[in-house]
């Protein structure tokens, strides 16, 4: 094979790396990276994977507590709920893909969060979603709305996990950037939680799931001599979800996790095989060797770059004790899934990747996973607050009281009944849904137990715009009130922080304030934050969305028969108000 052409400054830029970052890579490696290695750094040092802008702030969140079995750092958070059981949950965003292709963007969002849950060994028992749309008067927005709802329904219903709640807000600030945050809750045995560890030298790295295609690899970075022009059309910008494949994957994974020779599991999400392999090695302080020729592919002529960075959906990586490879493959084959041993765990703290008989990537694990410098982005209190927070109550037009005003409120899209939406979600499958959509919180019974779990997702972003600190506190307070009204005690928080461009100090100030507000509230009430997600750059042409720190709180009911619903039950009952 001829020597590859040298990396150009243009390619570095197209990969989203600054000159300083590229220089840092060369310094840390002691040499220049090749194109595949550049692609790996581009993915792993991206905001999405490295959390470089948000880490300094997320570190301040309270993540520990007597019930916490697993805090942030793994695929999902785990909370002990007694009786030997654990609740596994997380919320994740899929905002940008959903704006481009609402059905598939939302569908693959559901697929991604489901995998984050069952990769920990938990059977998913409930899905919720938090959606933000722009002005529904525009046909484009109605198209996005219908597509997202159908996509969530299409994927969630097919895989048989009930979608039991959520929230939907409409506001002009989301005209250019809709938000699709998906939450999933699963149940597992507290002593059978699986982590994403590649430990045990010699253990097998097993790939299972859909064949790898060119999904998610963008044309912009393909400007090198290694690729020919005809591959451009073949590179889809949006992934298509296959919920049937995911259902097979889910059942096969839960079956194989009964065995005691499964050492580690991780799903292939953003940055595909690259992020899973590197993260698993980093957590176990080990190394990994991969042979890409063994990876099941669905397109011909895929090179190392494409295979490592493909974002094809419905794929997982298992670490199997050496000697049990055939048994593992047999279980996957029973479910008619593609599976193959694609590598081994090593002890040299490197990722060594072979393709067509040659070593094409050799990178130190730690440099890739932790090498991106935390960017301490400057913050500045926004100018708009100078006017926004000054309110003269006397200047507000008082509408007439009575029926008309009430009807107007009830008809506003954000407040109006969402029955036409949750009617499209199967909210009953699994026979665990105690409280159907429409009440304050979703309540699910825990099979073979007297207990129940409740979930509420909330965020009034308008409050967050006016005061991110208070707004974030109001969001988590609202979730907690919803849980308490249903009879549950809050036991864990997950959150998805949706914000604009972090390079804008005013947005970064909103972020910092919201995280602080959330953290203070959770510390005061002793509710740990066990997982979450961050979605930045939600802005178009300089117009950012309102800061939207979406919060989902999970609560526990010791006695499910004492759950409560919000509806008036009988004529003659008295109505009371608690609080000022």
């Amino acid at each position, binding site marked *: 094979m001829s020597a590859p052409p040298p990396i150009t400054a243009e390619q570095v830029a197209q990969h989203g790396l600054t000159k300083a970052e590229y220089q840092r890579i060369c310094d840390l490696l002691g040499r220049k990276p090749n194109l595949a290695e550049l692609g790996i750094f581009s993915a792993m040092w991206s905001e999405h994977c490295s959390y470089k802008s948000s880490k300094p702030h997320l570190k301040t969140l309270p993540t520990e507590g007597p019930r916490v079995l697993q805090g942030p750092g793994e695929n999902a958070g785990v909370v002990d709920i007694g009786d030997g059981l654990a609740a596994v949950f997380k919320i994740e965003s899929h905002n940008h893909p959903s704006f481009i292709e609402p059905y598939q963007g939302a569908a693959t969002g559901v697929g991604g969060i489901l995998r984050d849950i069952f990769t920990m060994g938990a059977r998913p028992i409930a899905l919720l979603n938090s959606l933000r749309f722009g002005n529904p008067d525009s046909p484009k927005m109605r198209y996005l709305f219908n597509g997202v709802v*159908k996509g969530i*329904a*299409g994927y969630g*219903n*097919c*895989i*048989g996990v009930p979608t039991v709640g959520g929230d939907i807000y409409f506001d002009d600030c989301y005209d250019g950037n809709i938000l699709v945050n998906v939450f999933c809750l699963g149940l597992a045995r507290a002593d059978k939680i699986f982590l994403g560890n590649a430990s045990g030298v010699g253990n097998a790295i097993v790939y299972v799931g859909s064949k790898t295609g060119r999904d998610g690899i963008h044309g912009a970075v393909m400007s090198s001599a290694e690729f020919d022009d005809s591959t451009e059309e073949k590179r889809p910008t949006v992934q298509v979800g*296959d*919920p*049937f*494949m995911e*259902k*097979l994957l889910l059942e096969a994974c839960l079956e194989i996790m009964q065995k005691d020779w499964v050492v580690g599991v991780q799903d292939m999400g953003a940055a595909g095989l690259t992020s899973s392999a590197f993260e698993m090695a980093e957590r176990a302080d080990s190394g990994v060797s991969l042979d890409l020729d063994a990876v099941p592919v669905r397109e011909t002529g895929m090179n190392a770059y494409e295979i490592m960075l493909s974002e094809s959906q419905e794929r997982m990586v298992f670490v199997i004790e050496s000697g049990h490879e055939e048994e593992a493959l047999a279980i996957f084959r029973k*479910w*008619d899934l593609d599976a193959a041993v694609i590598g081994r765990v090593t002890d040299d703290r490197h990722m060594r990747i072979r393709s067509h008989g040659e070593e094409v990537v050799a990178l130190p694990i730690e440099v890739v996973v932790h090498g991106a410098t935390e960017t301490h982005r400057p913050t500045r209190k926004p100018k708009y607050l100078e006017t926004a927070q000054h309110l003269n109550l006397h200047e507000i037009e008082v509408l007439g009281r009575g029926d008309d005003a009430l009807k107007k409120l009830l008809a506003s899209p954000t407040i109006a009944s969402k029955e036409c939406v*949750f*009617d*499209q*979600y*199967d*909210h*009953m*499958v*699994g*026979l665990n849904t105690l409280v159907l959509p429409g009440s304050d919180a979703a309540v699910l*019974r825990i099979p073979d137990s007297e207990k129940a779990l409740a979930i509420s997702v909330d965020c009034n972003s308008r409050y967050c715009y006016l005061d991110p600190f208070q707004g974030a506190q109001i969001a988590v307070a609202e979730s907690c009130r919803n849980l308490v009204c249903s009879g549950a005690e809050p036991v864990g928080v997950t959150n998805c922080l949706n914000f604009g461009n972090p390079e804008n100090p005013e947005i970064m100030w909103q972020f910092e304030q919201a995280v602080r507000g959330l953290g203070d509230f959770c510390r005061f009430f002793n509710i740990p934050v066990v997982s979450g997600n961050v979605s930045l750059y939600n802005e178009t042409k300089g117009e950012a969305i309102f800061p939207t720190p979406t919060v989902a709180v999970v609560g526990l009911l010791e006695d499910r028969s004492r759950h409560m619903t919000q509806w008036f039950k009988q004529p003659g009952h008295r109505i009371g108000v608690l609080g000022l």
Partner: protein
Amino acid sequence: MKCGVVTFPGSNCDRDCFHILKNVYGADTHWIWHKDTSLDGFDLVVLPGGFSYGDYLRAGSIARFSPIMKAVVDHANRGGLLWGICNGFQILVEAGLLPGALLDNHTQKYMCRYVHLKVENAGTAFTRACEPGEVLNIPIAHAQGSYYADAGTLQQLEDTGRIVFRYCDVQGNVSEEANPNGSLANVAGLINEAGNVLGMMPHPERCADPVWPQTDGQKLFDSLFHKTRVQA
């Protein structure tokens, strides 16, 4: 009565059906894998709801060729009880074990909600615990539940009393408003000539556990297990 619930790739409600049969009715219940080839000794076989093969191409169109289906057909021909619920019903019509076809809901949307069903035939093995004309409150959850059969077939079904459930309102009126998906003649469930194969779109297993406030689904299970009508 030996009961079996078939798990096709993509079945979701198999666990729900299994739970009702085994835990609520205490029946001798077994899992049946789609690749199994024998159903010897089974009295009741259930084809559960879900999305077998993702509902790809047409709901039930691929599952009907599963290896187990040969044994399912034999079981039905032998007079064994065969119960297709939702996706199970779709598989039965694709396999020709029941006449007609199930098309997309006329709203072009999935719908999950409680509906009312009128028991048109209370003489079947699945409905003998019901009163003729009784109204049951049972949920549906499907995107392709609109029943179709050509005029001749439909007439024959009517004449021979093989339409077992029709969508109706809370008073039992079989009306267009009460028809959630556009099914011809508001057909929600029907039986074969011999009376041992029932296909229905609604999910009785979702309202048969006494833990829930809604338990109308129990009427069907009670019928199968030879129980008289449950008192309050």
